[in-house]
């Protein structure tokens, strides 16, 4: 799936295939895009996030069974993030669920739409309508400590101070859009679900106020605040607890697909845990071994060069008793230190919306 905004992006945009989507990885270079995102505000091409509509009389029952968090009373002015699991408790995807008048709208993580929609259709016991809306709708994001100001200039200042995960159906440039306060990076974050034919206009209008950031800058900023990046963290048959995504499931729900496996994982206490680390200049590959006192205690999940820290930043999955901040490990001969999240304090935490 190619981004619907390809014609609006500069010719030297660097694209990459992420799952089923071709997405812009970089526009002006990772470092510059990262700085814009952390210091001011950046517009994001999130067209690699698939939009799937669940409708029909049993839509809420279906979503309540398929999503791991409680969406029974998700109104049309709220959205929430949730995992979607399979029967074995493995992560199918991490979705943003929007309450709608006639059901729900699910936004997949980047490149995971095909897998998600196949899973939903395979589990459609309730006979709901499952419609891929990516042919007519797409998603743009705004993130950064001053993203709220951009919202005011671009759409409506009143929307900037919406509470987190609030949704408003609004109009931009005579086009009906779904506006949501969300956020992946710890900064003020907003999403706009727009008709595809208007997406380029909104993108260009946003660029009058901010610069664009690609997938690499976005995922770096996500990692820095320990926002799960499912495509990089869920491989290898790990369970929810090993990933550290407990907050994206709600075991107090009566039932959901994968609940028994999650409960079993909770009860067993077995398996490894994920912890952040930093140190050195080299960037280890996923799977690199993590040593403690010379003993193999786990492996690297992902690692990148953090612009904000000026050092390597990564996630390691290690023995549970070692998943704590302040420990010294060795990765490929380099000393690293485990961290407590967030690894970078977002500026937005000290900047009020005015």
């Amino acid at each position, binding site marked *: 799936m190619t981004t619907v905004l390809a014609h609006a992006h500069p010719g030297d945009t660097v694209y990459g295939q992420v799952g089923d989507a071709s997405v812009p990885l970089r526009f002006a270079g990772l470092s510059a895009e990262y700085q814009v995102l952390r210091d001011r505000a950046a517009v994001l091409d999130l067209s690699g996030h698939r939009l799937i509509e669940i409708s029909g009389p049993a839509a809420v029952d279906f979503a309540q069974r398929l999503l791991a968090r*409680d969406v*029974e*009373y998700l*109104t049309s002015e709220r959205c929430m993030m949730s995992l979607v699991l399979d029967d074995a408790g493995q992560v199918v995807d991490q979705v943003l669920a929007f309450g709608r008048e006639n059901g729900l709208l699910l936004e997949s993580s980047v490149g995971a739409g095909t897998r998600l929609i196949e899973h939903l259709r395979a589990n459609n016991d309730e006979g709901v309508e499952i419609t891929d809306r990516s042919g007519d709708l797409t998603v743009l994001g705004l993130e950064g400590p001053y993203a709220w100001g951009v919202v005011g200039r671009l759409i409506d200042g009143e*929307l900037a101070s919406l*509470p987190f995960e609030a949704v408003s159906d609004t109009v931009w440039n005579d086009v009906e859009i779904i506006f949501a306060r969300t956020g992946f990076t710890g900064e003020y974050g907003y999403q706009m679900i727009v008709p595809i034919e208007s997406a380029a206009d909104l993108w260009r209008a946003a660029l009058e106020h901010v610069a664009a950031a690609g997938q690499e800058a976005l995922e770096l900023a996500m990692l820095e605040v320990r926002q799960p990046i499912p495509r990089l963290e869920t491989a290898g048959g790990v369970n929810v607890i090993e990933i550290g995504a407990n907050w994206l499931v709600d075991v107090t729900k009566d039932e959901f697909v994968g609940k028994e496996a999650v409960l079993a994982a909770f009860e067993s206490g077995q398996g490894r845990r994920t912890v952040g680390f930093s140190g050195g200049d080299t960037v280890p590959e996923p799977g690199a071994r993590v040593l403690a006192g010379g003993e193999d205690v786990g492996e690297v999940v992902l690692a990148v060069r953090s612009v904000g820290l000026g050092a390597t930043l990564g996630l390691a999955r290690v023995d549970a008793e070692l998943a704590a901040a302040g420990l010294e490990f060795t990765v490929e001969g380099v000393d690293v230190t485990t961290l407590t999240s967030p690894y970078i304090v977002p500026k937005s935490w000290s900047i009020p919306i*005015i």
Partner: protein
Amino acid sequence: MALRPVVVTGLGVICAIGRDPAEFWHRLTTGQGGLTPIQDPAFAVFEARYAGQVPDEWITGQLPESDAALDRTAGLALIAARQAVAQAGLTGLDPERFGMILGKCQATPDAAGHYQPMHRTQDVIADRLGMRGPRILVSTACAAGGNAVGLAKDKILVGAADAVLAGGVDPLLFGTYAGFAGLKALSTGPCRPYSHSDGLNLGEGAAFLLLEPLDLALARGAVPLAEVAGYGLSADAYHATAPDPTGRGGTSAMRRALADAGLTPDHVGYVSGHGTGTPANDTMEAKVMRTVFGPRAGQVPTSSIKSFVGHTLGAAGAVEAVAAVLALRDGVAPPTIGFAPDAVPGDLDFVPNLARALPMDTVVSNNYAFGGNNVSLILTTPGPDREHTELPRREAVITGLGPVSGLGVGIAETTEAILAGRPALGVRPSLEGRTFAPRSLWRHMNNLSRMAIAASRLSWEDAGLKLPRKELDDVGLVFATGAGSAESTGGFDDSIAANPSKPAVLSFSNVVLNATGGAVCQTLGLRGPTTTICNGGASASIALDCALEMIRAGKADVVLVVAADEHVTAVPEGAFVSPYDRDSGSVPGSAAVAFVVEAAEYCAARGGTPYARVLGTSHVGGRFDGIAGLPGGRPDLVVGAGTGGGEDAEEAAAVLAALPGVPLTASAGLTGDCQAATGGLNIALAALAIRDGIAPALTGLAAPAAGGLDDYLMKPNPPEPVERALVLSSAPGSVRGAVLLGAV
């Protein structure tokens, strides 16, 4: 043609800057604030010490010896009420045409320091002033005073009264002070709204406005001071204590008020702001100003007199309404004092530090409250007498029932229990394992909110309402409760007793009586007009009255009435409870009951199936004197206010005398006395009797206090189809009400 103009003809106020309106206005216009450090050593535990206190001698100096034993709250209120009546020169009015709407935020102590019913202060004032007309205690926290003025206008417009005292009162209470300190909401110095918003100061006081129809006021030679041109209510549906940061609720309240008055933002010359001095409020309020007035926002001066008197909670809206009337009269805007000289000049005009002569014909007074309740009042320069029309009548129906009691959860379980004659005296409803709200909210809610939300959602589903988001913005909610959450009040009081520096802040946010109504709005996403009524067992029927007035005035097509009360003490085992039995006692109960009220044509258009039409309502204040003044028409069933004690015998005798042959019953024998919820349940079950022919029976009645067993409903199936049912409600010693329902 315009509706009947309603004017203010008398003012009364006592607060930190004045013992009467003249002194109050002099200090407001000369910038003499009244925020001073509290000298009571008990308050030394708090870092913040400033408050707007009323000197004791201002109270004792204005009360005759016969009133010396009154508690502080009643004393403050009585002083302001008498001032308003005196200025209006009101004498010789039929007591049953003279009403009172009082706003109050806190449950206040009697002279001995014990909690008293919310409406007790009001009863004291009404009895002393000889008032027997409509009597409503409105408790929308910090919006209550302004809310009271609006409801008073409604009472005049629907013809229920010829004069209404509307106002608010609250004293400075240690517990409340500790709660605000716990929320970190207090400024350590005199508050400085809009410039150095670092917190509020609490205050105390009372204020009243005497409202009457313009034509009657002029006919008796009174001088109108201002017209109450309109008012608007709204619910944030956002958070228990924090205002919606978008300002959406405040904006809709002001827009509704302007629409009610038939005015536009361009007419407004001055805005009396809520201006508490907290960053959340002041920021939100600036947004409201910009949204409502647009590019003209900077040309509409707005100021906060809380910079003089502190936040007087339930009195604030009334105190500020008095100031707004005086501003209008003299063409002077009081300033926001303490305005920081180094404040960055913004785009709004907060009338910093100095009063300003300002030609104005229209003033808006805004208040925003815990629970997300907002109110805007529109006051205008009084015009000449003019032709007017009566508020058009609009038929209303009850379309959905949501009882949650020991009998069951929902109308189906409740009906089954009634048919089986299975009482659940004092039994708390079981919601174990069931959620009626997102779990993230549900798990933090107290029991009263859970019951009320369950009842609301069930009534909504029973009504078959499926409204899009946009229409939910106009759905009203009227919450009725005698005492609010006993669980939260108890928890908060216990925490204060243990350590006032560590109050249970979550409980504190639920101590305000309107908190549960706010939680219902938040959960169901209702943002229409909303208010909270606290008149004991008569709360639900008064709430229905308010809902009908909202519908009649065209402010809502759908209004949810929710009544809830709870008890947390043990119920005596083996207690015999049978209303109207001379050997019966009474036991407390816990329940929530919601019912949906809709404009009849709205319900018909959507294909709804009503239970019953509302044929009429009536309320009278004062002690029980029979069922005179109740709506006409002979009913087929009377569902009485009997609880097993109290005024059961008098009520039964009065009903049997007035309506011989009409079976009398009541629901409290099944559930115990659930105060407001029993009133709500009686209305709901009367509607059920009309549509489905099922009514609560007095199965345990053996020795009737009046008449014989044949005079009572002894089986759950009334002998004849119920075409009309009369429902009685009662807050003993305070107010009695009646609701007449009919078949559709």
